[in-house]
């Protein structure tokens, strides 16, 4: 992809793929084939024009912004708390061998657990408000950040570390100038994944029981067989994800400017 395509050509091709999919969907749900009925009944599959119309109507109203706000808040909280926990525990485990060795099997077991089974428990503990969703997102984000911070500290170049020590740095200075930046690098390299999982936690939590948010909106539409509403909710979710991902990429490029692959572009 690098070099072979310029941005314009790439964008045109990306749009063409989307349009092709929509056209196919439109044709399959509207062109009569057998007994004057289309191949895909609109009741089950809706039609792209209906979905777009519904989405546009939603965005024009106020209700959707409330749902988006709730989901965004849950995602932010799940990410912030999960990342903080992952950093603290990651640091502690990487710097204290014994701690890591003792907790190793429990960390692995907890991480292997499918989070969906926890959702009803969290709903019992934290209620149907935002905190049960934050808790679900936390369990996803925490492990990603934790593993990356742990790895980042373990993989600090021995030469860089020896050099910093020879410069006379004490433990606190090593933490600030060597371990912390190394851990952050790994954390940021997993930023897309962890932000994505924070959102998954929020939406799945809402889907399983809540009174607001995108997951709730989709679930609500499903319960009355409103397929257009479901697809429209998914479309809004997709737009939301792209916006968040763009913001993450901008933050990443800003913070990791020293990394070889994010800088030094030729004009």
């Amino acid at each position, binding site marked *: 992809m690098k070099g072979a395509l310029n941005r314009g050509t790439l964008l045109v091709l990306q749009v063409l793929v989307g349009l092709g999919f929509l056209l196919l969907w439109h044709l399959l749900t509207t062109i009569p084939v057998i007994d004057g009925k289309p191949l895909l009944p609109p009741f089950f599959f809706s039609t792209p024009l209906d979905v777009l119309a519904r989405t546009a109507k939603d965005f024009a109203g106020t209700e959707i912004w409330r749902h988006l706000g709730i989901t965004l808040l849950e995602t932010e909280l799940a990410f912030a708390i999960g990342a903080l926990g992952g950093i603290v525990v990651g640091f502690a485990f990487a710097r204290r061998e014994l701690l890591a060795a003792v907790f190793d099997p429990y960390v692995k077991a907890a991480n292997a657990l499918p989070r969906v089974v926890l959702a009803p428990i969290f709903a019992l503990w934290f209620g149907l408000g935002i905190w049960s969703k934050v808790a679900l997102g936390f369990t996803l984000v925490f492990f990603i950040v934790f593993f990356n911070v742990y790895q980042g500290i373990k993989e600090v170049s021995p030469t860089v570390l020896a*050099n910093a020590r020879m410069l006379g740095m004490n433990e606190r200075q090593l933490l600030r100038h060597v371990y912390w930046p190394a851990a952050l690098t790994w954390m940021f390299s997993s930023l897309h994944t962890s932000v994505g999982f924070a959102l998954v936690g929020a939406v799945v939590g809402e889907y399983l029981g809540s009174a607001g948010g995108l997951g709730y909106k989709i679930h609500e539409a499903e319960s009355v067989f409103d397929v257009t509403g479901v697809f429209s909710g998914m479309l809004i979710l997709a737009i939301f994800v792209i916006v968040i991902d763009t913001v993450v990429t901008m933050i990443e490029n800003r913070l990791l400017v*020293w990394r070889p692959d994010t800088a030094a572009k030729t004009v």
Partner: protein
Amino acid sequence: MSSGHSASTPAASTPAAFARPNPAAQAVRFAGLDITFQLQTGGVHRAVSDITLNVARHDFVAIVGPTGCGKSTLLNAAAGLLKPSAGTVEINGTPLSGLNAKAGYLFQADALMPWKTAIDNVAVALEPQGVKRAEALERARAWLTRVGLKNFADRYPHMLSGGQRKRVSLAQMLIRDPQILLMDEPFGPLDAQTRQIMGNLLLSLWAAGDQAGERKAVLFVTHDLEEAIALADRVIVMSAGPAAKIVGDFRVELPRPRDIAEIRTEPAFHQIHKAIWASLRVEVQKTYEMSAEAQQ
């Protein structure tokens, strides 16, 4: 390394004069040093054995020896990065415990913090001494100018060439003004021309300390005999490992200031080279034969 003028006349030279040294006048003093590593496979590897060596203050000492002879191990012991299995390391007459605070270390591999710009890498070296950041940055800028990187202060290490990174490392080491410089094949990864330029830069910075009356002691490890002679006052030859020993100790009586590219053409240089190589080539040969046997 050219072996053309080697074999015929062994030891037609001046082995170093051993003055009985006053311990406190020695920057670094190894006595009966023995370093043995515990291997993960269960056995042990004796890297160096029974090393006794005095490095006088203000002396530039190069250590040469075949690959894997424990040259770097010796340097790490002087830095306090490695604890000797037996024997002692003394710095300025006091036994070393923990890291050597008097020494600066220039590593062979990249040792700069990749997330800091050139100037930040240099300035951070002053933080342990409690220098204020504004002053540290000012002094770092002066040092970057001295090593010829005035216009590269805001570059990150990956945006610099290998030679430029070494210059930053040199500034980072020297800004702390250490009394002893430990250098582990620092110019090894660089190309031939860059090595010569870096060698001359090192010599000029070292000689600048001379005028201030505080020339530093240098322990310079290299596998390049020509580099060792061009730079040093004294060349130590180590035997093939394991359990490497010191097998040669030569004074290099070449006038200073030197240009390390030009000095190689002088007849005196060739004489010294011939003498040291006679002692070194036996060890290189041994290492070669051992590795050939190991492959069979």
